[in-house]
């Protein structure tokens, strides 16, 4: 390659790299390579002085290619690209050799590690020689947002966006908004009325001219990419069977807040749900509490109430996860039942008491003070409910191995409340497919990073919030909904969206139109131009994974920044035999 002036920077990363790799020998080896103008070693390349050194060298020595041998590009590629930009050099004329994670951290022999580091830097040099300056492009960002699901998450997100003046399309499958929260009376641990939480939001949504609510409707199609989606919304009419014409809307981003479904208690035969009349689920108790009468099917006020935790949750047979809200809800029931009838005896049959949130531990203490009898059972040793005998003063007896006393006990009960856990909705797979996001083994939608990107997904422009991601309580759901709205507003405020310059391109002259790549693309980034008979890659959606490049039988697809020539040259560098002689 002509006129290549490469600067190579070898980082010691304190002693992380230098204690295994002989950095000075590597430096000497690199300095003798063709096209290398300058080699420097430094204790911390990522530090400000380290970056300034690169900027200055580029200016003073007219460097036009940079290689940094340091940590993983996941860690600091952005940092060094920034240094190139501030020196006025195209940021893609840069390559990183990962001699920390892939070399010094995994080897303990200096000779082998040093030889490997040399080879990795050589490969980076061979690749960077062929790099071309690339320009990132930008696409328009529509300020409209589609929110799927009108529970507490969807309503919160919609209001957040609409309050900022953005137009929101809120699609709700049912005839009214509210979702699962509309089925609840009070909320734990502060005993706020769920109805109050809801009414305030409903009024604000009704009065907000930026929010259009589609009741009893479904999103039946979503196409396009971030900033430029087209969605089709159809009003469902189950009873008459007539299909309404779908409404087509244009939006820039989507928030999925489809929520959860409660576990079907009849799946656990031990509990006799559906057979024993006074075994009810938590939602059935909510109904009673809302109606103002807690009573058995026979209309009697129960003297003994037993609450069984983890119904469907934390078990190998059903769901292994914790549903997070049931423990506090159970304590709330103990409180509500005791308030309604102070003479009632409440047994709380649990596996572990998960009182993790703000105010939860205090609430647990208050339940103890109110003499709720807490009885612990082993995860895989579920209680069994029997009908009581004629001599007993109760309707049912719950038999369980009590863990804290080590006794096999019978708990008297007139009413048994099953704390049914949360599970993914049966139509979640359909939704995932519609908006092109993934689900985990339990059917929950997967975030793009569980810690750092909790509301984004691997598809740009699609966000998830609330209990469709995993079980969570109301504060966490609201926080996620607002986070998703904030993420979208940040994008909208820019007006345009930057698309990474690294993506794949189809050479339309060579493309035979076989459409292999169409089906393989994991990001649905490839569309087919029927008229011209060739495939086209939407650069805004492409993540440059390279699947289409490898699959194309006509070699018509080029991965920018990872061209065949670049990759082959890199491999060539990596496979050179290098001898390290200890100085």
């Amino acid at each position, binding site marked *: 390659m002509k006129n290549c002036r490469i600067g190579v920077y070898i980082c010691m990363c304190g002693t992380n790299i230098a204690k295994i790799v002989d950095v000075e020998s590597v430096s000497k080896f690199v300095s003798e390579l063709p096209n290398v103008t300058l080699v420097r070693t430094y204790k911390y390349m990522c530090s400000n002085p380290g970056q300034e050194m690169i900027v200055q060298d580029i200016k003073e020595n007219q460097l036009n290619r940079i290689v940094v041998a340091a940590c993983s590009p996941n860690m600091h590629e952005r940092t060094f690209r920034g240094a190139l930009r501030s020196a006025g050099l195209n940021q893609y004329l840069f390559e990183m050799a990962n001699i920390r994670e892939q070399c010094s951290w995994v080897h303990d022999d200096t000779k082998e590690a040093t030889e490997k580091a040399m080879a990795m830097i050589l490969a980076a040099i061979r690749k960077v020689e062929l790099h071309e300056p690339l320009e990132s492009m930008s696409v328009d960002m529509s300020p409209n947002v589609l929110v799927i699901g009108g529970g507490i998450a969807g309503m919160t997100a919609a209001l957040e966006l609409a309050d900022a003046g953005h137009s929101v399309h809120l699609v709700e499958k049912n005839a009214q908004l509210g979702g699962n929260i509309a089925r609840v009376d009070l909320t734990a641990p502060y005993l706020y009325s769920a109805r109050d939480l809801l009414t305030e939001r409903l009024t604000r949504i009704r009065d907000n001219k930026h929010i259009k609510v589609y009741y009893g409707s479904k999103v039946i199609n979503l196409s396009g990419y971030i900033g430029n989606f087209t969605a089709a919304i159809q009003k469902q009419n189950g009873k008459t069977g007539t299909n309404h014409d779908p409404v087509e809307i244009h939006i820039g981003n989507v928030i999925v807040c489809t929520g959860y479904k409660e576990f079907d208690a009849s799946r656990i035969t031990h509990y006799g749900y559906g057979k024993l009349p006074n075994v009810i689920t938590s939602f059935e108790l909510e109904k009673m509490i809302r109606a103002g009468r807690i009573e058995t099917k026979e209309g009697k006020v129960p003297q*003994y109430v037993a609450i069984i935790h983890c119904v469907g949750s934390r078990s190998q047979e059903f769901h292994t996860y914790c549903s997070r809200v049931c423990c506090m809800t159970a304590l709330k029931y103990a409180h509500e039942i005791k308030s309604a009838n102070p003479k009632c*005896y*409440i*047994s709380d049959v649990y596996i572990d*008491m998960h009182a993790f949130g703000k105010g939860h531990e205090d609430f647990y*203490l208050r339940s*103890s*003070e109110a*003499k*709720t*009898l*807490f*009885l612990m059972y082993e995860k895989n040793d579920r209680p069994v409910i029997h009908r009581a005998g004629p001599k007993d003063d109760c309707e049912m*007896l719950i*038999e369980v191995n*009590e863990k*804290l*006393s080590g*006794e*096999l*006990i*019978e*708990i*008297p009960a007139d009413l048994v409340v099953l704390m049914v856990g949360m599970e993914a909705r049966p139509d979640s797979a359909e939704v995932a497919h519609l908006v092109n996001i993934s689900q985990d083994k339990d059917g929950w939608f997967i975030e793009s990073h569980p810690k750092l990107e909790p509301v984004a997904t691997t598809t740009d422009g699609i966000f998830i919030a609330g209990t469709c991601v995993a079980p969570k309580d109301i504060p966490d759901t609201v926080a996620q909904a607002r986070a998703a709205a904030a993420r979208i507003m940040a994008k909208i405020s820019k007006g345009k969206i930057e698309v990474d310059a690294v993506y794949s391109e189809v050479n339309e002259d060579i493309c035979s139109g076989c459409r292999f790549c169409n089906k393989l693309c994991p990001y649905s980034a490839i569309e087919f131009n029927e008229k011209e008979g060739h495939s086209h890659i939407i650069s805004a959606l492409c993540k440059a994974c390279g699947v289409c490049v490898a699959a194309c039988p006509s070699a018509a697809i080029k991965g920018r920044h990872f061209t065949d020539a670049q990759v082959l040259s890199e491999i060539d560098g990596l496979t050179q035999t290098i001898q390290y002689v200890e100085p």
Partner: protein
Amino acid sequence: MSIRVNPRFINDLVLFGAEDVQLCYHCGDCSTVCPHADEVYKFPRKSMRQLQMGLERKIETTLEPWLCYYCGQCSEQCPREAAPGETMMSLRRWLISRYDFTGIAKQFFKSGMTEIITIIGFALLTAVFLFYYGYSMGNIHIYDGKGAFLSSPFIHKFDLTLGSLLLIFLAINAFRMWYFTMIKGTKVPVPWWLYVKELYLLPWHFFTQKRYSECESKRNPKIFMPWIIHLGLMLGYVIMLILVMVFIERLQSGPAIQWQVHIFGYLATIGLVTGTIYIIRNRLNKTYEQYKKSHSTDWVFIVLLFFIVLTGIAQHIFHRTGLYELANITYIVHLMCVVPWLLRMPFSKWAHLVYRPLAMYFAAIRRDAITRREISLKSNSVSIK
């Protein structure tokens, strides 16, 4: 066979003093800090659990509450302020009411008022009887010898009658305790000779209360005062009881002091005076953990004892200084306290004088029996290659 949980039990126990047991979440800190808990006798946590769950039939067969001397380290350590020490105390009260076949103890523990009214009733009855007897048989100006208002042979018979009554109740209750703990509560076979082997423990624990001092084995700094005071009080009490039951006629003769008998009386009085004052002060000031909560029966116990001691001393002084009329009246007041006090014994906390050494004795027998059983199981086990 499963045991029925009784959620009502915890409410009943409130009357016996267990007000905070529901707060316990079974971290087990109490059992860790307790110097007496071990592999066989696990408490207070286990007892707390049995109480919360209302396993009455289990609790009545346990010895654990008697193995606790309430040093209070568990309550100091408890993160939930569930007062395990006080819970053990209330279980002891409950057990006393359980051993008592008459049901009187239960009434006394449940209602302080009932107890006080009963005591006043018996005191008045005593006064009426003694004044009637005194005036009809003697002269209020004569204390001792011929024509005495309350002659010593008469008092001796009176005391022995009370003592036998007391003994009958106590013997029946002790038998019930043995039946609950050793027949119903001990699941392993107990050979008769174990009762002989461990018999020395009865006097040993009765007279030394060594186990009380062992409460301090883990604590730093060690607080031995409650043990010393308790021991002094108990010895004083027992000496006095023996003197009254056996040597009353020599005690009452005077005005010359009979040193062979009176020296013991004075020593016992020192123990009783310091003991009662110390305990009343500590209960009022709520100094140590064990004095922080006082059940109505605790107050009746210590205050009545204090009155007995005071009137006893006063009567003694009046007698020796020749104020016979005053001595006779104080004597009746003294007996007005003594009679209900003695009759109350089998139905009150005082009964632990008998139950505690018995419990140590039974506990040792049960432990031996369990060890024997384990050894025999081991020797019978088949080794598999």
